[in-house]
């Protein structure tokens, strides 16, 4: 390479470095950059729902609004408890346009837990089923927002709405157009604990299935951690798998039942994953399932747990299972109720996971703290469903109830008061295990379309299950085409303090007069007053005017 070529390359590389540095500097000059979580955007059977935009670039406005304020070019910042739902409902019903909406979620639920939960549930119900044409974001309400809010209110109280002429704050989310999530997958994870076949026992062993769906759905996909729905069920399932794997590891205590553990996905979408999972089984395997126990939302009950079935309670099978549960529950001092809901095959809505089993003519039941079936896309681990609303004790009680009654069923200990999983024994329930898994689940958003096939979380579940059971298998399948999801669930919000145009004009005026005064002063001191007058008398050269 010639020397001049070398110089050129070095210059161009230096230029490139400078440009990269410039780009970096330009990105990080906001007053505050906050992580924000976008309202879900999805199409349900072609109907557009949720927030249909992601990019935000508007002046901030805060409640209370000045009378007659036009919000179509402002981003409304509202702490959750200050946001009147009636106001929002009116805006949604009238299809009035907002520049954007930023909802601040309280960070500590300690003061008014119940109220926050209620409002969040309402809000979620409102937003998820509506088409919102502007970007809606959620953020956690921290101290930095208090100052911003106070300032916005101060500006608003001066009577003028926020706009380019009054300065104030500008909220910017630089975001590209949200794109469709291409072919969302659902991953079902299963593991077996094979039972012990007696000698000469040629027939297949009966199977008991324990199932919990692990994915969530909520207004903000990146915040839908679903500790109770259905993180608690997943944790309970893992603990039951751990307990029975200890029993089954010893041939003497290996039962005459296979136990099948299933962590299913697609729960919020009418248990789509469960249906796909069941279909993937061989007919004989499906027929060998004696009954299935589905665990759903078992993390915050104190005294009453409900057993939901689709067969009438008089059915001998159901009766037997219910009796086993109630025996154990009586010993534990809690009550288990039974609720019967017929399934309607022509109705696409599947409210409970066990209904998918029932559609395949497999006896199944759901254990849940909810006494009535949830509506579509409700109680699926939304915004309010955080670690604080779930307690480890409830999960432990559920684990004890299920595993104790299962053990009595498997080992034929009916009517005998034997505590198989007594405390301080080697088979005791491990609260630390439950707590750590519950903590992990409460930090992992699990909306199925945003979980990749090889997501670390799915891998972690697979690994954990394979630690306890054999033949662990992950089944990947496509989510049924009724849903289309859009990405951009998380973004960074830049809050800029901006000056108004008026200020800039005023500044220019002051600056101009300063430079003119300076010019006159310098001319007078160095050349005399006559010169100054002369300058203005004869046609001044254009250069001098520019300088002034």
């Amino acid at each position: 390479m010639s020397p001049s070529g070398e110089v050129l390359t070095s210059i161009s590389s230096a230029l490139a470095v400078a440009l990269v540095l410039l780009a970096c500097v330009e990105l990080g000059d906001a007053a505050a950059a906050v992580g924000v979580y976008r309202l879900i955007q999805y199409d349900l059977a072609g109907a557009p729902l949720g927030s249909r935009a992601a990019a935000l670039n508007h002046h901030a406005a805060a409640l209370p609004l000045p009378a007659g304020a036009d919000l179509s070019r402002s981003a409304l910042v509202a702490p959750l408890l200050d946001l009147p739902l009636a106001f929002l409902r009116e805006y949604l019903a009238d299809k009035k346009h907002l520049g954007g909406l930023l909802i601040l979620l309280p960070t500590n639920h300690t003061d008014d837990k119940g109220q926050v939960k209620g409002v969040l549930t309402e809000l979620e119900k409102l937003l998820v089923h509506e088409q919102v044409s502007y970007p809606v974001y959620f953020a956690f309400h921290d101290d930095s927002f208090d100052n911003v809010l106070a300032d916005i209110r101060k500006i608003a109280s001066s009577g003028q709405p926020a706009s380019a002429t009054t300065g104030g704050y500008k909220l910017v989310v630089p975001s590209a157009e949200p794109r469709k999530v291409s072919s969302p997958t659902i991953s079902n994870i299963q593991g077996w604990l094979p039972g012990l076949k007696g000698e000469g026992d040629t027939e297949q062993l009966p199977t008991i299935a324990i199932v919990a769906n692990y994915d969530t759905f909520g207004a903000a996909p990146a915040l839908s951690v679903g500790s109770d729905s259905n993180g608690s069920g997943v944790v309970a399932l893992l603990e039951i798998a751990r307990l029975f794997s200890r029993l089954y590891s010893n041939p003497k205590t290996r039962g005459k039942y296979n136990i099948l553990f299933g962590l299913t996905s697609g729960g919020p979408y009418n248990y789509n994953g469960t249906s796909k999972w069941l279909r993937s089984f061989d007919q004989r395997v499906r027929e060998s399932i004696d009954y299935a126990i589905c665990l759903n939302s078992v993390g915050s009950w104190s005294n009453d747990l409900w057993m939901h079935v689709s067969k009438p309670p008089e059915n001998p099978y159901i009766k037997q299972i219910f009796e086993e549960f109630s025996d154990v529950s009586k010993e534990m001092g809690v009550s288990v109720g039974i609720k019967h809901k017929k399934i309607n095959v022509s109705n696409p809505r599947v409210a409970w996971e066990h209904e998918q089993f029932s559609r395949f003519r497999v006896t199944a039941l759901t254990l849940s703290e909810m006494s009535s079936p949830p509506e579509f896309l409700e109680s699926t681990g939304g915004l309010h469903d955080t670690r604080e609303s779930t307690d480890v004790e409830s999960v432990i009680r559920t684990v004890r109830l299920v595993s104790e009654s299962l053990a009595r069923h498997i080992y034929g200990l009916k009517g005998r008061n034997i505590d198989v999983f007594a405390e301080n024994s080697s088979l005791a329930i491990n609260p630390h295990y439950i707590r750590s898994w519950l903590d992990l689940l409460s930090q992992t958003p699990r909306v199925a379309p945003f979980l990749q096939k090889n997501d670390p979380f799915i891998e972690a579940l697979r690994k954990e299950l394979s630690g306890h059971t054999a033949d662990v298998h992950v089944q990947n399948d496509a989510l049924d085409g009724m849903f289309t999801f859009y990405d951009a669930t998380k973004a960074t919000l830049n809050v800029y303090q901006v000056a108004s145009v008026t200020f800039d004009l005023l500044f220019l005026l002051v600056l101009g007069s300063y430079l003119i005064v300076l010019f006159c002063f310098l001319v007078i001191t160095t050349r005399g007053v006559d010169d100054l007058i002369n300058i203005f008398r004869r046609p001044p050269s254009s250069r001098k005017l520019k300088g002034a």
Partner: protein
Amino acid sequence: MTVFHFLNCAFLTFGPHVVYYSATPLSEYDTIGTSVKAAAVYLGTALVKLVCLATLLKVPENDSFDPYQELMKVFIGFIDVAGLYFALTQLTHRNISQNHKFQAVGLGWAFADSVLHRLAPLWIGARGLEFTWEYIFQGLEANANLVMTLSLAALGSLMWLRKNKPRTLVPIIYACALLLATMPSITSYLRRSLEWQTPKVVGFELFSSLIMAFISWQLFSACQRPM
């Protein structure tokens, strides 16, 4: 709107230099060549200063005021004075009077300083959406710096170019020049050690620059008078 702000700040930072050049007789005698040469000398001086700073100073771990390091900085700051000396005495200027020479050199010097230290931050920062007072203060600082550089150049030309000056004034001239040369260190002391806020520091700079300009002017005109 933000480009507007950027232009405002740029006017504040570089306007006075242009105004000074066009308002004073400098423009009539076309001394731009001298100013450009002075700017070139400034660039060389800045390079030497950078090398010295890099070799002699440690990287400060915190933002505190370390007397030894600051003393070193003051000494390195005197390289500026050496540069000015070079620009005033060694450069072959066209035949212009001493009176205009120091102004042209001071102007070129201050303009180069502004371009080197203030243009890049201005370009990057003032165009952003976020509003801060920072760049307005920076522009005011550029103004103060222009006045101080001109004063220092005036005193320098008295020290090095004028042979017959009143004996009684010589110590005062040297003292003032020393004070002007240490001014950057003084402001850095105020900023870091006394933790003055930017508006206060800029106010001090403007005020002191005006005082120093007045003193230098008086000294200059005193020396101008026939003995």
